[in-house]
């Protein structure tokens, strides 16, 4: 075991995978010699050479598009998009090809690819560098979407994604890259894609989130505890497949829920969670499910970023709202 930050865990996972499987390679902008703008690929160029740590020309459609057939050919691409907002040029390849090739060819061709997307806000970056883009793909069958919230899951989900026979969007919460360290096994292990985790057990209110805001929820849960409210925190870990069993069981138990995501409110993925609760455990609800989200505005520039982002106090207010409904 070693103490690693989330980005070290991602880096370690990629190295472990590349040592085990020579079909795995990394492609993207500045992922080679430079080790990535976030240093996620630090040391990989040195250890594996420029054929497996590829600095592509600056064209997302291009390197996502070529990676598609490289995966079909039998390689295992890890594609790094430099920032969330810059995945947009590759949208056509994701929705019309990568997500569909297995289905279109009735299994004749498949596209096992991991697309790494540094995601979400909170690091006071320039515009287009702090986006919540999961909703571009949450309604797009054929893709899987995972979001780690801690170093252990980051490594395990990356290795699981590389084993997965289907394309996986791996959304990395930038804000957590270096925010804390945790124990991470040095050896190979996987965290099953499609299984949520109970990050904290509780009895009064269920808090549901993924990525950064699992921590916002944990912080809010502490504050709520101080006020005598016991919160259970669910870390979805995977947006697709969505592990409804875990959060439905919790809501069944607590009868109260708060969903926390960072994307704009209207049409955000959190609404699917509310819909699932409606589908299956409506009768157990003691109060409407509360949602703490971003606002229906473009991600503000850094001076106004904090106004936009969900925080523990906003979650706490929502917790009290559903508790005292």
């Amino acid at each position, binding site marked *: 075991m070693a103490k690693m930050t989330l980005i070290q865990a991602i880096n370690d996972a990629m190295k472990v995978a590349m040592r085990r499987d020579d079909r795995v390679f990394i492609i993207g902008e500045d992922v080679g010699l430079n080790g990535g703008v976030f240093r996620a690929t630090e040391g990989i160029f040195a250890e594996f050479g420029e054929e497996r740590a590829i600095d592509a020309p600056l064209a997302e459609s291009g390197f996502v598009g070529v990676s598609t057939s490289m995966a079909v*050919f039998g390689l295992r691409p890890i594609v790094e998009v430099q920032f969330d907002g810059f995945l947009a040029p590759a949208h056509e390849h994701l929705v019309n090809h990568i997500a569909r090739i297995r289905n279109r060819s009735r299994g004749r061709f498949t596209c096992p690819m991991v697309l790494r997307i540094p995601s979400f806000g909170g690091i006071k970056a320039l515009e287009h560098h702090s986006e919540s883009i999961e909703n571009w793909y949450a309604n797009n069958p054929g893709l899987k979407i995972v979001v780690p919230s801690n170093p252990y899951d980051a490594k395990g989900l990356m290795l699981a994604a590389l084993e997965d026979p289907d394309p996986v969007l791996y959304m990395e919460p930038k804000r957590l890259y270096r925010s804390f360290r945790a124990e991470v096994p040095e050896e190979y292990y996987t965290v099953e894609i499609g299984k949520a985790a109970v990050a904290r057990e509780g009895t009064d209110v269920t808090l549901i989130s993924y990525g950064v805001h699992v921590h916002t929820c944990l912080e809010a849960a502490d504050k709520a505890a101080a006020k005598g409210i016991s919160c259970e925190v669910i870390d979805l870990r995977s947006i697709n*497949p969505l592990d409804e069993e875990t959060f439905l069981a919790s809501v069944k138990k607590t009868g109260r829920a708060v969903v926390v995501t960072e994307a704009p409110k209207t049409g955000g993925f959190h609404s699917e969670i509310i819909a699932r609760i409606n589908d299956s455990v409506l009768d157990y609800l003691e109060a409407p499910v509360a949602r703490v989200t971003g606002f229906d505005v473009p991600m503000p520039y850094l001076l106004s970023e904090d106004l936009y982002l969900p925080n523990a106090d906003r979650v706490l207010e929502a917790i009290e709202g559903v508790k005292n409904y």
Partner: protein
Amino acid sequence: MEMMQSGQLDMEQLFPVRRVLNPDGTLVGEEPNFTTEELMSAYRWMVYLRTFDVRALNLSRQGRMGTFAPFAGQEACQVGSAFWLRRGKDWLFPTYRDHGSMQVMGVPGADIIRYYMGDEWGSHAPEDVNVFPISIPIATQYLHAVGIGWAAKIRKQDNVAVSYVGDGGTSPGDFHEALNFAAVQNTGTIFIINNNGYAISTPNRKQFKTKTLAQRALAYDIPGYRVDGQDILATLQVCKEAFDRAVSGGGPTLIEFLTFRYGPHTTPDDPKKYRAQSEVEAWQAKDALERMKKYLINKGLLTEEQDAKMAEEALAAVNAEIAKAEAAPRPKLDDIFDYVYATPTPELEKQRAYLKAFLAKQGQGEAK
């Protein structure tokens, strides 16, 4: 002054139209060195494909399959570009109009008909045939072709990939990104442009300013060619050169075929809205099949009788493919759920169960 210089370049002269046979079937220059077998095989393919295309368009018009994109007029481009590829080794990334090339590469005609009937099984190429499903999103397939060459390079293999776009397909950004990636990585990729003069109704002059599309190669320092697309010997010759270059690590090639589609863009299209009948006739006078036929007859390799027989055989073969397609089982309900992922998600299983239960209740069972 730099401007004058580049402006001075005469692209039509820099990229002369490669031609081996004159429209009347006589040779432009010296005899090309193809074997009799190659010559006959290429011609037989064109005869078969012309028949296939005409019958398929009829099927579509009769509602026995959905919207279809015919290629009659472009046979020499399709046959020449797929002719040299190694089955089971090389790759082909077609558009919706390249079912000629697909068949030369080994895709059964029945599969193509099933695709246009609206069955995904039509895109399930035989195990030893590396033909990607038809790409309808224009130009995206150019990048796929590059990925194969790149992957092959990494694996120290020599797989060649051919991909196609039309004249309109040279406008999307992916066309540029693919050529640039291929040039930088020196991949074994053959980029075909089937310039048939129109993108649906949009003529070349609204699509690009230049007199040639082959000159796009100059932007990437890769070889570019313009070829008479109605001349099977020219298409075979240039594609062989490109194939040899690709296999030997010589990198990518851009080939512009000057060709024409005799029919509509797709079944519902009415070409009279945007092009003159005289234009169609002018191109039909240069027909690739006629031209090759005359050449073979002059060479004593073909008689009218043999030609008529070949046409009959082609028709029989096409009808057999149609029969096979129409006899094929219709897609099953499970098909739409089974191939979204290697293993359906729990949610997908619920949805499948819901649909089956619903249809059962409707007394429809699996049927539609």
